[in-house]
């Protein structure tokens, strides 16, 4: 229902999400890319704010130069012309677990106020209403990537007060505990949705609304989540996609509009 919530004449909610997320990658060296939106986000960032960005795929590719938009993270276009192709053991052990990954994107079926993520089941694990894909690499990515960015649409069913299952750990709600964990991840640093962008409060580890997208009211945001959101003092508006960002998305990255219409 919130599919086109933030749609203004001229661009779609997805295009707003992509543009806002890409700007968050300014200056980043390497990024663990997921399929779908994150894939477009990283390719857009590479063409705008992060020209040196190395694309890393859990399928074992480092420094990919995809000549087309891959449908999956294992697309053949990712291997051809990349810097290195490695076994998945080495990618997860020597790159991710060893702390070489600067930024990673995670999606979620459910997320809570502390950035804990569920991609496993809706309902009881043993008798699920909906069986979701599960962790894949998300659990270890959440733990080892030095910055975690979440990109997802928000609504009462996805922004929940209580997860049905915690697949990937976020903030604990106790920053002292988080600091003592001894892992790099330790919770998302930002969330971009179709309605706005969020950071996480240093003191409480709680998701905090930073900006709303053009045309989105605070009430609309409140109605679209399962808890009363913390709001940053001086809540801002997300700058809309620039003409150049839209051109790149529409002409180069997703000409078919598979992900962005």
């Amino acid at each position, binding site marked *: 229902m919130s599919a086109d919530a933030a749609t203004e004449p001229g661009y779609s909610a997805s295009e707003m999400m992509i543009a806002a997320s890409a700007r968050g990658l300014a200056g980043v060296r390497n990024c663990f890319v997921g*399929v*779908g939106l994150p894939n477009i986000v990283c390719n857009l960032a590479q063409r705008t704010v992060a020209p040196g960005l190395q694309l890393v795929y*859990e*399928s*074992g*590719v480092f420094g990919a130069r995809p000549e087309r938009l*891959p*449908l*999956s*993270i*294992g*697309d*053949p276009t*990712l*291997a*051809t*012309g990349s810097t290195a*192709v*490695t*076994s*998945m*053991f080495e990618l*997860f*052990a020597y790159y*991710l*677990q060893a702390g070489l990954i600067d930024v990673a994107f995670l999606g979620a079926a459910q997320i809570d106020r502390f950035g804990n993520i569920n991609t*496993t089941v809706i309902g009881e*694990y043993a008798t*699920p*209403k*909906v*069986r*979701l*894909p*599960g*962790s*894949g*690499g*998300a*659990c*270890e990515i959440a*733990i*080892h990537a030095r910055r975690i960015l979440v990109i997802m649409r928000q609504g009462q069913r996805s922004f929940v007060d209580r997860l049905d*299952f*915690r*697949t*990937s*750990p976020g903030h*604990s709600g106790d920053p002292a505990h988080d600091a003592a*964990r*001894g*892992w790099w991840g330790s919770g998302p640093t930002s969330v971009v949705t179709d309605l706005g962008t969020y950071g996480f409060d240093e003191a409480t580890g709680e998701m905090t609304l930073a900006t709303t997208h053009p045309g989105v009211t605070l009430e609309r945001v409140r109605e679209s989540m399962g808890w009363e959101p913390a709001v940053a003092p001086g809540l801002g508006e997300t700058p809309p996609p620039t003409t150049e960002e839209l051109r790149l998305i529409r002409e180069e990255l997703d000409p078919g509009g598979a992900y962005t219409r």
Partner: protein
Amino acid sequence: MSKVATMQEAVRDLVRDGDTVAIEGFTHLICFAAGHEIIRQRKRDLTLARMTPDVIYDQMIGAGVARKLIFSWLGNPGVGSLHAVRRRIEDADPEPLEIEEYSHFGMVCRYVAGASNLPFFPIRSYYESDIPSVNPNIVPMTSPYADGTEVYVVPPLRPDVAIVHAQRADVNGDAQIWGLLGCQKEAAFAAERVIVVVEEIVDEAVIRRDPNRTVIPGVAVDAVVAEPFGCHPSFAQGYYDRDNAFYLDWDRIAREPASLDAWLEEWVYGLESHRDYVEKWGAAHWDALRPAPALSGEVDYGRYA
């Protein structure tokens, strides 16, 4: 000596009812041809292991060959759900499916432990996740050294049979792969019996010209099967592209048991072998999937005589 066999022979002789079978390959080099032959030979009560069950296991589980699934990511990559698997898990339709679930790295480490003859493998994952609470095989352990770091360990995975697809191998089973490597090497070394399926069988001299390219040596292989286009709708780097259209179609086909059964009837049971499958798709289909060349260049090993 030669280990060359037909897919029919290899599956008949090496895959047994009740076996744990791993057809590995991360998006790349998934051997659909072997999965179809297992369906055709109506194997039963298999435990299927795969990081990403993918469409091949949706087809096999829809066909009723399996009682259990071991996995780390359950979906149709880039498309959505595996409907046949979901019916089994969500509705026990037509019967329940036992599942055992890990993260990607957990599955990889299980294969590495199996390949290395290790009783357990340590991993820095699962912290503050609910996954260990639903999988008792994932257990915490503390470093015996001064740092006392907490890790989790996973047990070795030793499939009865591993089936891996490679671009090429010689008749001894020395197999070479380029492009995405997934966890095929680890799965093959971990398995009791190994079937290597290839796009082409090449002269041993071709393998020996570039020994660093060899991913699975013949010493670990029981049968070598030549099955061109054997990965379709998955792909073989440099040979043919992923058939993304089929992955999208499968979402529709698998939504209803009737349409899934009809597809199996037409494309698996109704055919003698993968050769018939290739013929049925037709030459134009394969031509459309063939990429332009992108050659690796050569390196010099030097002759030291």
